[in-house]
């Protein structure tokens, strides 16, 4: 079936639900085909190719919601799904804030978003396999200390998503994506370290070359060799783009409406206040053509848009769906997200930090003694309190230059103080995924080691 067929099917499910007694209904249908190949030690390790479909419905009886999903898209399967959702709605509680977006709020972002490219599906299997092979080979070619590999993979997917609701919205869109990554293992004496690099895009032509991905991955693994554990002290900490992105992910959770209305975020009630250094601007934009975080509408049928979340240090907007907006007396920001069904949660489009003026080299150059964090581990971020304590690995900086690898340490602080302590934002912003950040320098954090 094509997008139009799925759009019609979603609208039909909404009609069935209304016919069976639902006051409101919304239906999501998704279909996708995936392909992946992994090369390891120059041989094909796995080859996977398949597709799957699913449908989900959420109904409201009065203001009581019920949800259901199925992988059985036959008329019987869809009817059973609807009945199951209605049965559940009889058991939930009336929630005065539950409901669909207003009709006037529904729609699609204008303009062509370039979410689908024919060149992904058109790539021949042998080309995909060769890309993975070349990627791993490029890593091996960098240095004889790259002795092993966890492999290189090429993966791609082509999918469709349709959404309809009982306020008259019905639309669908098609996306494509592909990616290439490799995980080389470096060894010197007893020291063994791995790292990875990847590229991903909606268009095959926009991928970085296999040679580039392999080389960067190898260089990253090599620079981690022979790490030292350093003494515990308060130090300036530099986050490279990959780890800065992880920090942005934590800020996303803290500004999402679900955490805010429950008062479960350290940023609750801070709208309009200065929460970060003036050099920090955080933007969510799901309308940037071709990027992985773009979409025409959110998972409630509200048009995607650009929202400035932090404007030069001031918290200017939360990220909201219809429900969390109503709870807070605000308007949805078009950030509803969910799988096939259930009450919508809050998601992001392309969430990124506006770039600054200093190059990464200039930022490192400004640090006399400090830590460049290249990897973060574990789940030690408490959004309620802002307490932040995570495992880290990276490079010791001395007189502005990385001098040796550091591992088995933690970095800790409080997100509020960390945001306030951002001294520099780099000029090296790149959109590699749906969260993007340039290099960041935080004035001081506790680095725990020996």
């Amino acid at each position: 079936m094509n997008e139009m067929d799925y759009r019609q099917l979603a609208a039909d499910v909404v009609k069935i639900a209304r016919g069976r007694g639902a006051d409101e209904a919304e239906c999501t249908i998704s279909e996708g085909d995936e392909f992946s190949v992994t090369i390891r030690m120059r041989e094909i390790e796995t080859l996977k190719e398949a597709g799957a479909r699913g449908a989900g419905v959420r109904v409201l009886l009065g203001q009581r919601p019920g949800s259901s999903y199925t992988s059985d898209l036959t008329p019987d399967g869809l009817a059973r799904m609807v009945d199951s959702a209605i049965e559940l709605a009889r058991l939930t509680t009336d929630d005065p804030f539950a409901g669909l977006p207003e009709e006037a709020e529904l729609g699609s972002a204008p303009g062509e978003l370039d979410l689908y490219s024919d060149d992904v599906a058109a790539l021949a299997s042998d080309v995909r396999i060769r890309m993975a092979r070349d990627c791993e080979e490029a890593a091996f070619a960098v240095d004889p200390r790259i002795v092993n590999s966890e492999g290189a993979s090429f993966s791609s997917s082509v999918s469709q998503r349709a959404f309809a609701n009982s306020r008259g919205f019905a639309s669908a869109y098609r996306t494509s994506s592909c990616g290439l990554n490799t995980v080389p293992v470096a060894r010197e004496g007893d020291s063994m370290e791995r790292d990875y690099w990847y590229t991903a895009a909606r268009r095959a032509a926009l991928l970085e070359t296999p040679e580039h991905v392999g080389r960067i991955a190898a260089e990253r693994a090599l620079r981690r060799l022979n790490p030292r554990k350093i003494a515990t002290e308060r130090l300036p900490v530099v986050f490279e783009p990959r780890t800065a992105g992880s920090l942005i992910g934590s800020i996303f959770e803290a500004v999402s409406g679900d955490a805010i209305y429950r008062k479960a975020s350290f940023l609750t009630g801070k709208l309009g206040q200065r929460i970060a250094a003036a050099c920090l601007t955080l933007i969510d934009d799901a309308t940037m053509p071709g990027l992985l975080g773009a979409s025409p509408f959110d998972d409630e049928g509200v048009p995607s848009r650009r929202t400035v979340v932090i404007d030069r240090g001031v918290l200017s907007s939360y990220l909201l769906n219809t429900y969390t907006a109503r709870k807070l007396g605000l308007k949805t920001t078009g950030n509803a997200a969910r799988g096939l069904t259930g009450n919508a949660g809050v998601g992001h489009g392309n969430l990124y930090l506006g770039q600054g003026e200093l190059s990464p080299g200039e930022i490192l150059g400004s640090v006399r003694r400090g830590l460049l964090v290249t990897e973060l581990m574990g789940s030690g971020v408490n959004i309620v309190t802002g307490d932040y304590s995570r495992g880290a690995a990276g490079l010791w900086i001395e007189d502005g230059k990385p001098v040796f690898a550091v591992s088995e340490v933690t970095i800790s602080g409080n997100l509020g103080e960390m945001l306030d302590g951002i001294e520099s934002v780099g000029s090296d912003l790149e959109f590699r995924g749906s969260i993007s950040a340039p290099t960041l320098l935080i004035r001081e954090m506790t680095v725990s080691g020996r």
Partner: protein
Amino acid sequence: MGLSQSYIAAKFGIAERDLERYLAEALGSGGDYADLFFEHLATTSFSLDESIVKGATQGVSMGVGVRVISGERTGYAYSDDLSPERILRAARVAACIASGPSKVQTTGLQEAAIRNLYPVLVAPTETELGGRVELVKRADGAARAYDARIFQVQVVYADNLRHTLVATSDGTLSHDRQPLTRVSVSALAREGGGPPQRGSSGGGGRVGLEFFDNHSTPEFFAREAARQAVLLLDAVPAPAGEITVVLGPGWPGILVHEAVGHGLEADFNRKGVSAFSGRIGEQVAGPLCTIVDDGTIAHRRGSLNVDDEGTPTEKNVLIEKGVLRGYLQDRLSSRLMRSPATGSGRRESYQSIPIPRMTNTYLMAGESDPEEILRSVAKGVYCKSFGGGQVDITSGNFVFSASESYLIEGGRLGPPLRDATLVGNGPEALKWISMVGNDLQLDLGVGICGKEGQSVPVGVGIPTVKIDRMTVGGAA
């Protein structure tokens, strides 16, 4: 037991000759081995927030995965449509990995007699919905009644019933019915206008709803979550640097899961990328440490009658008195390493290729009295409960995040500490274990482990242990 007793075979009218035909098609281009994994999954969940049952979801998904192995190569395809044409098509796609004439004869399928580790007559998924909604309401009431400072309570009840059917070209035929359920509670406490703190708890297993009747009641988990949130109102920043750490029994077993378990999964070791690669027979921990991965404990969340490749699970000794003994094997690694399968081949769903995974991983009890362990520490940190953990299996470095911990001063528990991450190196950290308590406990049954994008339910356990040196990442 016959194939007729398989839920999936009955529901979709699958006979042995059908399975043999699909396997023959999968091996039609050569290859050493092929298998079929059918899965039918039914799920239910209820969520409560602000004392309102705000969410309720049910769902059904099903499908089949077809795998062909040729040497070290794996071909994989799946279908959510169980019609013969679609299964045969998936078999042909998976077969593309091999080339050449068919060389394996599929032997007749033999059904292995299996035990039932979770004889749950009526799975929670099969019960009246009303009874399950009550569980989240009971938890909410109990958390709020615990202390007036509790101001937000979220409760999730979730169950699923997973039926599997596995047929392999070397003749294994097995099916399983796997019920799973849990209740999770999260509570926020606040004192006056001060900053809030969160506490959480939960539990479950491969059990019927009667599990929630006695000790493991929703009220019990709710009070635990509330107690933790209230306790943390008085928490002080954790220390920073190397310090003596005492782990309490139960959840802190996440230490063995991260520090040892992942590094002993056979795929990493076959490829030589684990910090434990090639170290079988070496002393990697003190003689007090014996660590097992046991998929056979009745009703536990991580337990399975058979793994997702049709192999019965076992109690596998990973470390015996400090000496590294064995790896966790799936079929592919066991073939290539010429080592017996250990019942560790698991997958998230029919869409995923099976890989070696843990089940319930724990450190066996020692002889020390837990009180005596505490008394032996002049200054340190006592960890009672944890959030998540993670490991880099190549360097061996791991972390886990303490969600309830206390300062130890002069052999006694001092003030509670704010969240802190602990970091160590797998093959090194265990050498610092100097005392092992006699109070082994398993966790309450909510663990999830992620690897290569696949999540599976697991369990962990540990008695009280003393680790002489570990890095604690506090902000103090």
